[in-house]
């Protein structure tokens, strides 16, 4: 059974159809990429899956169950975590605190035992701290553990946001342009991490990405979109050589898109 399934999903904003009858399924354990020119509807699909927008038609299923009745704050509890294109972190908190907020859905203690700081709460806190420390080690964030987000450079924030999504311990990770604004070395690092996230942590990844180099090196399957319509779906190689896709990236043929 596929982990995430979109069936005939359509959404319009005013007169503009941002996504038109999109249908695809993401299988457990795969890295699935959405590509396409600006305004193709990639981020809208993300916002639909994370329940920020509601489709005007079609159905979205996670683990076989429709999630159209869920609110955005139900999403992490289902096992879906996301990052944002424009980085949405808690600016006045430290890196560690941001990761710990990622553990919110896993916290179980009640207010009274928390105020009294009972042993049960302490051991639970140790567990969450441990989970956060594992993410810190995985992403090499040790030097920034106690730094406030607002003082950090862009590249580090991008990684902290990825870390916070990992702290949620999701089944499905939605990455919105994980490499945008990063240097070539940083992008290579992201590719390496996505590989590990899939293989070591067993997390399925759905990502939107413009960097075709990154897309072809990490994704199993790619869906190309333009103007809200599905152009092609298949392996990175198949999609990149698809005539309709090349057409949509006029002037950015096979070679151009690989730059």
């Amino acid at each position, binding site marked *: 059974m596929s982990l995430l399934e979109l069936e005939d999903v359509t959404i319009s904003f005013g007169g503009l159809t941002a996504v038109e009858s999109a249908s695809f399924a993401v299988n457990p354990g795969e890295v699935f990429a959405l590509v396409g020119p600006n305004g193709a509807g990639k981020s809208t699909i993300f916002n639909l899956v*994370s329940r920020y927008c509601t489709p005007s038609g079609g159905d979205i299923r996670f683990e076989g169950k429709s999630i159209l009745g869920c609110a955005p704050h139900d999403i*992490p509890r289902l096992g879906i975590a996301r990052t944002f294109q424009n980085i*949405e972190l808690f600016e006045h908190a430290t890196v560690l605190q941001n990761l710990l907020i990622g553990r919110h859905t896993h916290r179980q203690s009640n207010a009274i035992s928390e105020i009294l700081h009972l042993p049960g709460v302490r051991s639970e806190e140790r567990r969450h701290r441990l989970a956060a420390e594992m993410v810190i080690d995985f992403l090499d964030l040790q030097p920034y553990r106690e730094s406030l987000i607002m003082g950090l450079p862009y590249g580090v924030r991008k990684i902290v946001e990825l870390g916070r999504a990992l702290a949620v311990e999701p089944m499905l990770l939605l990455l919105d342009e994980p490499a945008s604004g990063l240097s070539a070395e940083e992008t290579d690092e992201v590719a390496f991490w996505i590989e590990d996230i899939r293989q070591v942590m067993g997390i399925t990844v759905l990502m939107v990405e413009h960097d075709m180099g990154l897309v072809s090196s990490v994704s199993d399957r790619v869906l190309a979109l333009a103007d809200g319509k599905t152009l092609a779906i298949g392996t990175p190689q198949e999609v990149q050589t698809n005539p309709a896709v090349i057409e949509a990236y006029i002037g950015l043929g096979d070679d151009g898109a690989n730059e």
Partner: protein
Amino acid sequence: MESLQLLVSGLANGCVYGLIALGFVLIYKATEALNFAQGDMMMLGAFVTLGLTNDHYWALPFWVSVPIALLLMGAFGYVLEITLLRRMSGQSQIAVVVLTVALGFIIRFLAGAIWGHEPQSLESPIAGVNVRFAGLVLGLDEVAVILVTIVLTGLLYLGFARTRLGLAMQAASQNQLAAYYMGIPVKRVSALIWCLSGVVATAAGILLASKGSIDPNSGLLGIKAFAAAVIGGLGSLPGALLGGLVIGVIEPFAARYVAAGFSQVVPYAVLLLVLIIRPSGILSQIREKKV
């Protein structure tokens, strides 16, 4: 001895300001909105308790009225959020300020229409009882005010710092979008904050009304409490209490030693001074300095 006596009564007054200021800070911390109806909510809470407990009205026992009033005012805060303030999301902060100022007027008018405009006292078991302590004559009401304030501030402070809900509130105030995707029901959290600030306002109102008297215009104390919140540093709960105490203690001393026309101005002069020397308040944002 006289200054000690002044100090204690100042501290007791300051605690009431501090409690109202706590309401300001709670809402500001969690939703970045300023609730200028906080003083009026305090007044309404006092009148609701008074209406339940005074012989002239429902004549319920004091210890029965208090929980009912706290519950009712908590519900009032909750309903205010889901009916009015929720619609203001995305609007400028000034729009929310104007809304809450208007809300204050409405509450003042309603309280006047229901309970009249004359000052009334709450018939509470702590009113008018004196205790002697180390040569000082303290009103039991003053002692109760100080104790209740310390306990409430402590609980709220720990609640914010340690509980799941407290952390959710802090997260929601910093970034709503991100908070949603950490599993925090942002809207429910804001409603709970308004509920909580209704409860805190009522506690302040009950204490004020048993210490002295209350009338529909008592809500204007909210202005002093706002000054207290700013002095302490908007966003800091212990700061709100500290600011309240500063203003509360300055008042009786100013009344005693400063010429009559000027004593009223002294608290605001202190506010100006704090804003000039330490614009972010005494306790707030010390952390930011590290950056």
